[in-house]
């Protein structure tokens, strides 16, 4: 059991909740490795994937997680739905509740929507990303990935690089990394930093952190979420903020590179690094993040619903 009925943001997660999610993930990870990847844990429970914003990875990850736990999962996406006919979110929720579902997973382009939905329904809600606010399950799967590699979390140096202004992943990860005792540095140009992140350590170039960090967390440049584009050019971005081979080679031996996906090739990470094979490629844990994502989400569904 988690301390709250819903998982909306990192702030409301207790350290105990985080430990519980991480420890449960180990056993669910094992299920994903079996030939028959299914347990009857949530048989008869109905999970509603309520996605108001296009998503393939997160939606699919939740869907696989629910199915491996034998829950029934229904996918709803705004495209082709009655929202196009002018139905309000509240009315959509009323309709869903009338169908007696057990849990809602919500993704929406507006910050705060998960909290709004949670205030409206009695059943648990999982925030699968709300605007520029939070994406807690992403942060938790990232944390699990780090724990798998390093064994412990305290004192690890995490550098988070990129667009903080428009990134919900950034807000969730910064908070979760700090909460679990990691040493977090933000690397971003002024126009990609919100007005007041003054309580965090900020650097302007990836070169300031590349040699010293244990975790290099590359944020996705949220081109679709930028209201106005102030950054001068991709060439400028590459010069100060991108990961290329030269920079990868400067990293500490045990250090890792993470990205929430999908990568904008040639912006956050160069093609060469993305297509790497051999020893150095082991630094890139992007695929592990996706694999562990399913197990973490299984653990969360289990802890909330059982």
């Amino acid at each position, binding site marked *: 059991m988690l301390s709250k009925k819903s998982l909306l943001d990192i702030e409301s997660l207790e350290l105990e909740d985080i430990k519980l999610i991480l420890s449960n993930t180990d056993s669910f990870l094992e299920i994903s490795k079996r030939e028959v990847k299914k347990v009857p844990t949530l048989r008869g429970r109905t999970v509603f994937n309520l996605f108001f914003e296009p998503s393939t990875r997160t939606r699919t990850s939740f869907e696989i997680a629910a199915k491996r736990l034998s829950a029934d999962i229904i996918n709803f996406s705004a495209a082709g739905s009655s929202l196009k006919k002018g139905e309000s979110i509240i009315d959509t929720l009323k309709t869903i509740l009338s169908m007696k579902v057990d849990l809602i997973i919500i993704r929406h*382009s*507006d910050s705060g929507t998960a909290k709004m939905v949670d205030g409206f329904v009695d059943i648990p809600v999982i925030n699968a990303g709300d605007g520029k606010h939070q994406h807690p399950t992403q942060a938790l799967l990232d944390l699990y990935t780090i724990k798998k590699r390093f064994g412990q979390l305290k004192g690890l140096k995490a550098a988070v690089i990129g667009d903080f202004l428009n990134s919900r992943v950034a807000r969730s990860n910064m908070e979760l990394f700090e909460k679990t005792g990691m040493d977090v540095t933000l690397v971003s140009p002024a126009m990609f930093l*919100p007005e007041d992140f003054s309580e965090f350590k900020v650097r302007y170039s990836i070169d300031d952190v590349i040699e010293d960090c244990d975790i290099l967390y590359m944020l996705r440049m949220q081109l679709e979420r930028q209201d106005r584009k102030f950054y001068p050019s991709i060439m400028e971005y590459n010069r100060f903020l991108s990961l290329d081979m030269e920079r990868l080679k400067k990293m500490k031996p045990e250090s890792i590179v993470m990205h929430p996906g999908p990568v904008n090739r040639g912006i956050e990470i160069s093609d060469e690094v993305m297509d790497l094979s051999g020893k150095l490629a082991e630094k890139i844990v992007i695929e592990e993040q996706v694999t562990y994502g399913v197990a973490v989400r299984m653990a969360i569904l289990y802890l909330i619903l059982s």
Partner: protein
Amino acid sequence: MGKAEDKNILIRKGRIIDPAKKTESSADVFIKDGIVEKIGKNIKVAGSDIEVIDAGGLVVCPGFVDMHVHLRDPGFEDKETIESGAMAAVKGGITTVACMPNTDPAIDSEHAVKYIMEKSINAACRVLPVAAMTKGLKGRNITEMGLLSQAGAVGFSDDGKCVADSMLMYEIMRYSNQFGLPLILHEEDYNISKYGLVHEGHYSSMLGLEGISGLSDDLMIARDIMLAGRSKAKVHITHLSTAAGVEMVDKAKKDGIDITCDVTPHHLFFDDSVLSSFNTNFKVKPPIRSSEDRKALAEGIKSGVIDAVASDHAPHLDTEKNTTFKLAEFGTIGLETLFSAAYTKLCREEKLSLAEFISLITCGPAKILNIDAGKMEEGREANITVIDTEAEQRIKRGDFISKSKNSAFIGQKLRGKIVCTISKGKLVYNNK
């Protein structure tokens, strides 16, 4: 005889506050045929047809003046009407409101001003139209300010919008000067505020809500102070929200510029820490700002820089507020909580004297609009509010009589309650 509200009224043993003179006394008030006949000790009147209000332990003062109200009439009568807004006003102890012109059609013609004047004849309180500065509030052509002022407009405003064109603003100032009416200025730089939802600061950063920097207001305040200095116009900055704004108005006053300003109860009451609830009733414009800004506004009241408290009553339908923070409309209703919200903060917490506070919602705004209101004298039409300053209540959605229920104060514990309101000589609200 006639209806209860047509009776002569005797208010006994009230604590009478004269906000203009900032004096207090204990006395009775006798209202005959709607006129204040006598204010004095132990008034003896005979006759059965007298409504006696025992005001022992209660405050008796002039009816309030709210100089910034959206009545949504004409055009948005599902949100509010002149009639329903006036009822909400008197429930809040307000007997005069100035209504803003962002209706549909906008109050930008002689005809529209006359519509407000005529429709408000039977309203529970006085309703004074503020006319648009530019036609259709579009920020391009100056309205017929001469015709509008002759028809009864008490001021000019494009409220909800800010004239971006500085040359046009300068000409508006020069022209309005001819008619002696104030320009009520909503200050906002759209290049800064365009995508914003809330105050830009710690909370917008952490919550991922698009910010509206205080610079949005401040740059336009600075511009308009400069333009007012040159044009000699009478300008009023409405819903001041920033510390820098208070500072600039203070300096402008000292420099001899004809400038006044008001602040809303919600900007005095809340700071941006309330945003973590994502409650859309906190989505207002200008946004609820930082705790430093809030403190500066309260200080501005105490030091006398701020001339009035006004509600910026902005009714919206549930469907416009029960949605995501981004999609929700800006605005909170405020008529019914004008006194109690500001009183709770200013008098109970910030220790402003009651008489000083009442002057900010009576003679203060009356002076800005140059209207005959906010006074209580023998021989004048009775516009009087009776207040229980010790009452305490938790505000509930069901309390509101306004057509819209979008109050930022729902759930708050407020001090002070309006007991009776006598408006246009009649007892129109009695909660005794």
